[in-house]
């Protein structure tokens, strides 16, 4: 292990840079109160005019590096007189500070800063949804909650199922982290939504770009990280929060409650959280008709327990997600003939009434995650963390009964995954910081009933290092990763009625390199290059069976090669007190990109002909731009504008790539009224979402041409009421206010029905303290 770490240091760390920089000496010492001689922790020791600086440790110690020559050292601590000292450095030095308390009373302290989120890959674009923006997504699915992020769209299967698309890529190429654990569910179908309760989240982070270097091969196009807030540390405290959401369209009701606290002095350091969500929805309606059987029922629960000592921490976490999702009637087709007939009609032929009842076809999915995590601070600026997680994902799909009276599901799949990872984070005063890590995964599948995906066993291993160097206006970053996958599948041979065991292995190296240059304090430019790879997934290799809903018979290809991506991105970021602007351009070239292609031949099922789809590979590229503008002409007015443009081309067949998100423009305005009578923090906002028609679609591929452009208006008002010293936060929002009938290109049920009509959403959030 130590050798390995050393190797990474040599490869990616200091070695590359220390060759050119002048001799550095170590300056160390301690900071104490002059009178009591007690150590002062978190006092700052800096070299003015440079980025070199550090806070003292719990024992008041500090350590930093300085070049040869005259060095100016600045030591500061709130409530004490600041000390400046200048001395000549030509060897390692010990400089101690004894600070004298300041007589001056602190009149007022203004802290105006935004916490800089810790970024695993500093030179990659990361968007964080939190605060009121996150509150406004309460009750929505995770996919829909992410739609407010520029460059992120969703791939939908009717109103109840959606999965995120980042820069045009979806499925297993987007890694979803639930409280630090990579979600290992069954990402091999379009109608498989991520099994995460967004009510858990205090913050959702979206990394746009290849993050495989940190998270493994599955993060080829990005990472969505759902983070709960840190467990409380105030000894003896107990807090809670209740969320309630009601929607008029599907008559959705969601109720979520959370209780957390930290134990009293006898058990200091021990804290906990319990959280649960219940969600029910009935049939969704479009402006013209009700979509039959689009209800959902969801029950989620999570629990966390943590022991925190100043130098180490152990944490246990468990979450349970259980959902039952109705699949729209009239989208179940038996053959190509059926499909064409339904597309020609374009809307359901039967009138349905509103009901909460979920009938066949439907699916039930449950996901359990258990995690144990710990870290230990081995010095003031380095720590080792270890995490183990076990996940079980169970999926049952119930088709309409027709010829048989069997009540069993048509498909039952259960996958078990254990993951382990170890990380070493370090930082020194001279501008170097980085992370080195190892990860391992084992996955297995159990199936029953219909054949779609074989049983398999998978072992994955990976090792990576990311090193960062920041000096002056520059931040430089480089990283490398090696991944290995061993995959054994038990493929059913239908000719001889026996199981064939096939074993394949994949390995590859990913790398990332990036730089950020701070042109001014407000203005920075970031460039990043990532080389990433993704081995074919089990479904791409071995799927063999009828995929209902759009009349397709899917066939995998055991000879698929690993797909390799080269991703370039350039990011301009400007922010001052009245303007925040971010422009990102990217080019993502993927060789051997794996996707499903219609073969043009038919598979004869009893119900008629089905179109055969075969997994295939092609060289493709994606290029696009995301623009994000927020203007605050006054303190109370906020204007925002988001633009996502994307273009994808299949070089192998010299045509566009199917299912590329069309151009999307989102413009909004919010006015903060402040306090109006008993209503506090009143804010009123409206926005328009314009999605263009996808004109860059291949011809003769799809069952129906892309639908037309659409323009939606949304509005919201939020305010706070004070009742018995308890805040009640209200948010009332209207989605599709003008009740527009439209279809979305990335909804695979667009062939059969329109998107939902007007929806008024009521949200109430009540945080409280228990004494």
């Amino acid at each position: 292990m130590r050798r390995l770490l050393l190797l990474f240091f040599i490869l990616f760390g200091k070695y590359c840079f220390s060759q050119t920089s002048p001799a550095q000496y170590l300056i160390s010492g301690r900071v104490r109160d002059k009178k009591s001689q007690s150590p002062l922790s978190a006092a700052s020791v800096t070299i003015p005019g440079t980025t070199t600086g550090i806070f003292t440790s719990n024992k008041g110690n500090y350590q930093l590096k300085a070049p040869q020559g005259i060095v100016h050292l600045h030591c500061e601590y709130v409530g004490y007189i600041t000390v400046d000292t200048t001395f000549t450095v030509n060897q390692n030095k010990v400089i101690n500070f004894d600070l004298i308390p300041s007589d001056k009373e602190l009149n007022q302290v203004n802290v105006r800063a935004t916490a800089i989120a810790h970024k695993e890959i500093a030179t990659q674009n990361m968007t964080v949804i939190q605060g009121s923006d996150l509150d406004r997504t309460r009750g929505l699915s995770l996919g829909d909650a992410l739609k407010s992020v520029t460059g992120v769209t969703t791939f939908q299967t009717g109103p109840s199922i959606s999965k995120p698309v980042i820069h045009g890529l979806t499925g297993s190429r987007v890694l979803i982290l639930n409280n630090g654990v990579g979600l290992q569910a069954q990402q091999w179908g379009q109608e498989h939504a991520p099994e995460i309760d967004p009510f858990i989240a205090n913050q959702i982070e979206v990394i746009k770009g290849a993050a495989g270097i940190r998270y493994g091969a599955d993060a080829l196009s990005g990472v969505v990280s759902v983070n709960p807030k840190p467990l409380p540390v105030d000894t003896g405290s107990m807090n809670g929060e209740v969320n309630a959401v009601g929607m008029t369209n599907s008559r959705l009701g969601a109720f979520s409650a959370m209780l957390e606290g930290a134990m009293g002095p006898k058990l200091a350091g021990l804290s906990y959280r319990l959280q649960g969500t219940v969600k029910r929805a009935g049939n969704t309606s479009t402006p013209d008709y009700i979509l039959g059987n689009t209800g959902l029922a969801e029950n989620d629960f999570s629990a966390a327990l943590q022991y925190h000592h100043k130098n180490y921490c152990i944490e246990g976490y468990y979450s349970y997600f259980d959902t039952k999702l109705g699949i729209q009637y009239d989208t179940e087709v038996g053959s190509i003939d059926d499909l064409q007939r339904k597309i020609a009609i374009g809307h359901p032929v039967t009138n349905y009434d509103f009901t909460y009842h979920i009938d066949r076809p439907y699916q039930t999915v449950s996901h359990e995650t258990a995690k144990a995590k710990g870290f230990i601070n081995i010095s003031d600026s380095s720590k080792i963390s270890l995490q183990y997680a076990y996940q079980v994902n169970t999926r049952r799909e119930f088709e309409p009964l027709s010829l048989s009276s069997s009540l069993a599901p048509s498909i039952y799949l259960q996958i078990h995954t254990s993951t382990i990872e170890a990380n070493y984070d370090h930082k020194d005063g001279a501008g170097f910081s980085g992370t080195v890590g190892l990860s391992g995964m084992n996955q297995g599948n159990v199936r029953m009933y219909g054949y779609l995906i074989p049983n398999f066993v998978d072992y994955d291993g990976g090792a990576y290092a990311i090193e960062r160097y920041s000096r002056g206006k520059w931040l430089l970053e480089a990283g490398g990763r090696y991944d290995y996958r061993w995959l054994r599948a038990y493929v059913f041979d239908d000719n001889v009625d026996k199981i064939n065991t096939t074993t394949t292995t994949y390995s590859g190296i990913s790398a990332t390199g990036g730089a950020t240059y701070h042109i001014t304090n407000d203005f920075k430019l970031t460039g990043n290059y990532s080389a990433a790879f993704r081995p074919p997934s089990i479904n791409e290799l071995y799927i063999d069976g009828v995929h209902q809903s759009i009349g397709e018979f899917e066939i995998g290809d055991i000879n698929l090669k690993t797909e390799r991506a080269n991703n370039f991105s350039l990011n301009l970021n400007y922010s001052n007190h009245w303007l925040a602007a971010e422009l990102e351009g990217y080019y993502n070239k993927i060789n051997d990109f794996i996707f499903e292609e219609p073969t043009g031949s038919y598979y004869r099922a009893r119900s008629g002909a089905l179109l055969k789809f075969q997994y295939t590979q092609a060289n493709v590229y994606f290029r696009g731009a995301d623009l994000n503008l927020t203007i605050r002409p006054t303190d109370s007015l906020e204007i925002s504008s988001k633009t996502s443009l994307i273009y994808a081309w299949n070089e192998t067949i010299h045509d566009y790539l199917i299912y590329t998100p069309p151009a999307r423009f989102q413009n909004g305005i919010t006015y903060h009224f402040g306090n109006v009578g008993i209503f506090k923090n009143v804010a009123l906002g409206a926005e328009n979402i314009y999605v263009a028609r996808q004109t860059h679609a291949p011809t003769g591929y799809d069952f129906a041409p892309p639908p037309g452009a659409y323009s939606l208006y949304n509005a919201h008002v939020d305010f706070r009421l004070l009742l018995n010293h308890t805040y009640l936060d209200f948010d009332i929002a209207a989605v599709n206010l003008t009740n527009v009938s439209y279809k979305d290109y990335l909804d695979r049920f667009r062939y059969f029905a329109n998107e939902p009509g007007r929806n008024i959403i009521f949200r109430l959030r009540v945080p409280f303290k228990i004494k």
Partner: protein
Amino acid sequence: MFKLKHSIYALLGTALFYASCSNKAEQAVAPTIANEQLTSAGLKLTNQADPSDAPSCLYRFHLDNKGNVTSTDSTSLNLKANAKYNVQVVMLDTTQTPTFDVAAEIKDRANYHLLFFQPTPVAQQSLVFGNTSPYIPGTAPSATGPYLNLSVARTDQDTNNPPLQVGLADVFTTGAASTGKLRVVLRHQPNAKNGTFDPGSSDLDVNFIVNIK
């Protein structure tokens, strides 16, 4: 890179160790039980005027061990011109022992099912569609060219209120001598059956070669 590789193997070793505690996934392949099996569909006819004239035809799906269709074959139906036949639709699952009568199953759930018929010419360009039940609605009839001279009427009803036709029992009326195909489609229309073709999805869609002499 040499040392790195060794570390990976060491890591894989530990992965194998902890995974061996949970190897229930391995090779635990449960039997493939298909939810619905239909291997044969056919028609049994009896001439109303001559009970000894009882032609029949059978369409067979050949399945692989996963229940997927690998090939099909069909016998032709030979009818007399200008005659009336009582018809019974036959649907069987021959993978079960004894052979399972799927048609009886359909009869039990007749309120969800509806059969449609479509006489078509052998030559595709003179395809003729009927527009009324029990014919599959579609494009307007084009009478260019000879087509199968056969008309179909469903004679059974379900227990919906008011009752709707089912199509497991029918009467075929033949005209002048002709040759063509008869397409038979079973529509599955849970909670949506209304006597028309459109709701639901197809459970069965087969073509029989028909000779009227």
